[in-house]
């Protein structure tokens, strides 16, 4: 999605992360903890499944009505005082934001979390042109200071241990050496960022939901950073993906009931703010909204994969994914990692660049089970595999292995003989093997093999 497209070197980067056993175990548990909190929140919401059905239907409607909804939105937004811009791609989005900041004579910018600005490479662009851009979400600030991308769409620094954050803050913010208490570290960042909020000349935010009925944007945070970033500086620029509009405020309410529960297990984010243009009480307050395509119209025209545009970026499919939890977000090499990232990437950056990602899945279907808007993620991944095969983008070794597998499975006697041999020689699979498949086996154990084949057991039981 970002430009220029990187070829995801998934295997190499996942391997690098997997080399640190302790970190992998901890990362896995931290994400599973989020998944467990999501489950608890879902169980405490009696209308949960109906709510998901409703949200899925709402999003299907939205995807069919984007021009109508944005037309209605922009009329109401302009009446509220927003200046609405439309950007075809990342370059136009960057140029638009850059132009607005320059025209206003701004240098210091505070930013709240926006995956869209990551996707469009906004920070590096603005920094290269001399702007001071400070990410204010704590996790984003941490990865910004480390000069690395977020590894998760909701908890951007989930791949880091507290000691690493402590070291970073000691170096960058002057906290005492060895300080690694999360509360003390977070409050040190608060003090530093508070100063920057008060001095900022512009605030850039993402948008969780644009509401056509009111011409307003909704932004959700737990920290309150989007609120400070819009309540203090005289200029606000909001950037929004073309899929984020809904017809009414009630529709936004449906998504709000799902978003935080799916993301972190909270019943709603701490702050959910609805903003309709400039504040009439603040003289000179200016508000701009940039609606961005950057590949979304292409995806919207793809009948197989357009449902992926329903995503509300809750991160639940990342938290539950056994591959993501062990590979970490950076391995994907895309702005959005995990199952949804692997579904979006081939459409956004092209099948050749993203060819490894649809295979970064066990197809267990856990992502589909948790997705609040019922995107059929694992089916989508399978569909991409099929398309990659059709386009000849599957490596020869895999193609040969698949062909051999198909032949083997199509010959029952051979299959039975293979099973017989396997039950006797299965222990060999536990021996360390050389070559690239070594990594694959590193965090997997071969289960104990039964004494008899399934067919023999069936015969015994049912005659």
């Amino acid at each position, binding site marked *: 999605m970002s430009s220029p497209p990187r070829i995801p070197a998934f295997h190499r980067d996942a391997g690098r992360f997997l080399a640190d056993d302790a970190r992998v175990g901890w990362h896995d548990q931290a994400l599973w903890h989020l998944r467990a909190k999501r489950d608890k929140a879902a169980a405490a919401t009696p209308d949960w499944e109906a709510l998901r059905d409703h949200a899925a239907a709402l999003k299907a409607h939205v995807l069919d009505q984007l021009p109508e909804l*944005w037309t209605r939105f922009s009329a109401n937004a302009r009446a509220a005082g927003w200046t609405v811009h439309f950007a075809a791609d990342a370059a136009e989005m960057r140029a638009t934001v850059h132009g607005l900041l320059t025209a206003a004579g701004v240098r210091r910018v505070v930013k709240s979390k926006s995956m869209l600005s990551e996707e469009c490479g906004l920070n590096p662009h603005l920094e290269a042109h001399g702007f001071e851009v400070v990410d204010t979400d704590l996790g984003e600030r941490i990865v910004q200071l480390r000069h690395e991308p977020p590894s998760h769409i909701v908890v951007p620094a989930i791949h*880091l241990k507290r000691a690493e954050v402590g070291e970073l803050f000691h170096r960058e913010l002057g906290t005492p050496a060895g300080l690694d208490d999360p*509360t003390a570290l977070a409050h040190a960042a608060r003090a530093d960022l508070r100063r920057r909020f008060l001095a900022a000349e512009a605030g850039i935010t993402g948008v969780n939901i644009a509401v056509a009925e009111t011409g307003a944007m909704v932004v959700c945070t737990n*920290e*309150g950073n989007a*609120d400070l970033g819009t309540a203090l500086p005289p200029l606000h620029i909001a950037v929004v993906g073309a899929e984020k509009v809904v017809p009414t405020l009630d529709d936004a*309410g449906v998504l709000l009931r799902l978003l935080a529960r799916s993301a972190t297990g909270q*019943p709603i984010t701490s702050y959910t703010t609805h903003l309709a243009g400039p504040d009439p009480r603040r003289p000179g307050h200016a508000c701009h909204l940039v609606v961005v*395509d950057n590949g979304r119209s292409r995806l919207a025209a793809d009948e197989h994969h357009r449902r992926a545009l329903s995503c509300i970026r809750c991160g639940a499919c990342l938290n539950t994914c056994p591959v993501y939890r062990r590979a970490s977000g950076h391995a994907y090499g895309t702005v959005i990692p995990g199952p949804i990232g692997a579904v979006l990437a081939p459409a956004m950056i092209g099948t050749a660049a993203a060819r490894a990602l649809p295979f970064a899945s066990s197809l267990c279907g856990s992502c589909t089970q948790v997705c609040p808007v019922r995107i059929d993620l694992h089916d989508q991944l399978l569909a991409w595999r099929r398309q990659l095969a059709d386009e000849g983008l599957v490596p020869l070794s895999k193609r040969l292995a698949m062909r051999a597998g198909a032949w083997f499975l199509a010959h029952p006697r051979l299959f039975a003989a293979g099973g017989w041999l396997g039950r006797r020689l299965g222990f060999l699979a536990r021996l360390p093997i050389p070559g690239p498949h070594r990594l694959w086996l590193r965090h997997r154990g071969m289960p104990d093999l039964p004494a008899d084949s399934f067919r023999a057991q069936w015969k015994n039981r049912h005659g």
Partner: protein
Amino acid sequence: MDEAAFLARFRRDGAPAPHPGRFAGHAWEASWEGFARVLAGVGGSLADAAQEPRAAVQAAIDLAGGRVVAAPAAGERLAAAGVSGWEPAGNGAPGRFADVQLGILWAELAVAENAALLFTAESLPERSLAFLAERLLVLVPAGALVGGMAEGVARAPRHGHHHTWMSGPSKTADIEQTLVIGAHGAKALVVVRW
């Protein structure tokens, strides 16, 4: 790029999937016990109904240890009840609340399902107070509780510059998934039924 050309990229033929209508979900009970339970879960607290609200607010102000500022809708009530030790929000640059120890706000609505409190351009004309104050005391009319968020959103304003739903104090779990209260906004939030 031009709006019409942009929107043309998303145009589709054929009948669109229908809008699913209003969501008629679970009928949440509008109970303060439920609200208090959820609020405690998100790091806030509800003042005991047995305590007289005026006395609860005065005690909080006396203990504030610094500047106390009330948003207009809250200030009116405090003045009428003879509560002292606070200053009105007044007018000026939005950053003028940076050293406020206690902000006192008036919420129009409370939601039992998710402990969300509604602030609008009328009750909170100047948003920055709610996010710069170290701690928040929120007054909410005892009759302004609804059960579910759907009902809450249905009552939220369709006009006016802004409204915010606030559920507990500011928080983050960005360092090792450890919950820290007070990431940027308020470090504590107490709700008093008025």
